[in-house]
């Protein structure tokens, strides 16, 4: 079980708040939509706090923390 940051592609409209304000966790694709960077470790408290602030700022509520089986 592992916790991951996820952007729901059906909800993301490319506001770009996540990668502007939390560039350590997010970047943009060629159309301006948000992308979660590889190797994000949510067990690090500062990373988790950054992920939570990204969840709070997304205008489309497209970002969440999900639990996966990996």
């Amino acid at each position, binding site marked *: 079980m592992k916790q991951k940051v996820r952007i729901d592609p059906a909800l993301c*409209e490319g*506001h*770009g708040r996540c*990668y502007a*304000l939390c560039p350590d966790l997010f970047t943009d694709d*060629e159309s*301006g939509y948000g992308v979660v960077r590889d190797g994000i470790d949510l067990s690090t408290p500062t990373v988790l706090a950054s992920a939570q*602030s990204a969840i709070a700022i997304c*205008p*489309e509520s497209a970002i969440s923390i999900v639990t996966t089986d990996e």
Partner: protein
Amino acid sequence: LLVWGDDVSAEPALDELFNYDHRSSKAIVSPFDLWKQMRRECPVSHSDAYGGFWFTTRYDDVKSVLADWQNFSSAQGATIPNMPFRFLPQHMDPPLHRSYRALLNPPLSPREVRRFEGWMRELARKYVRELDVDGFDVCQDYVYQYAQRVALRVIGFDAGDIERLYHWTEVLAISDRQDESSLRASAELGQFLSDILVQRAAEERRDDLISLLVDAEIDGAPLTAEQAQSVLALLTFGGLHTTSTALATALVWLADHPEDRARLERDPSLYDTAIDEFVRFSSPVAHIARTMTADVEFEGRELKEGDKVLIGILSADRDETEFADPDIAQLDRSPNRHVGFGVGPHRCVGAHLARQTIQIGIEEFLQAMAKFSITDHHAIRFTGGEGRDLVNAPMKGTRR
């Protein structure tokens, strides 16, 4: 004395009391107390103006209306009264809308926009340098000169066309679109856009949006001349009538709040939140309209298929239930889930360019000026339609 049958209910006839008109001088000059009262007492009101429409003012309602494109459609227009012609893809719904955005998003992505930084800074510096600092209008002499030229260049118009384009779009933005001057502006603008697309199709391609439109395909089929013209019309309106107001609002705020100016200069990382805060605070597209595709009960009101709905974007962005101290620009505001760029499928396609235009516009102005202040707050002037454009703000200052 009251007689039997008289209405003695406590409910005032709020719809009649407000009878909201976004083109009234009240809504343009000082709408904030009115919207606050409407959010509290009558969040969805009905107006008799322009054949009748609903007006929604609360943050939560505005967000849900913008996201619910199935019931609140854009395909019948986004203004009240309607524009004389259709803008694409603003005046369409998903899924076709998405194909247009697939065309327009990539050339306006943050990466692409960053390539423009050098010439944008040059342009800002030129217009700051030319200011007569003993007395200038920060809107007309600096902000509009710079920000509109940025938009024109990205779209691909010649700088010499700025005055004509501004005139036509201004007439259509603030008029009721029925009078003779609107119809003339509409015809002239349409012809101009059509001519430029024909002309540019015959020329070598350039690095601009007109070149993109000339060769564009939507779902495998080339754009027709009318479709390309309608996209170009939307880009022109978006470029000329929005960003300038956010930038001008920022500079007026900083003139009145030198402590905030000092904070920005001490800590430039504050720009990350400050830009969106100025967009929230000004929300230049103050209103936008939708048309009901079904009967829907909303905030206790019965909205019927075909009804027009006016969405109070700027009211939502000043809603005290979402934003603490909403009438203050807090440069470090976070979270800041404002709706100034819209929400849902129609979110502003030029948002990344707008942010960069605003930031460079502030940076270059602060860089050049030791001090600046408003010389007459009475002379700060807005014009209005659906948008609320800040068009005059007299200042004086000293250079560094």
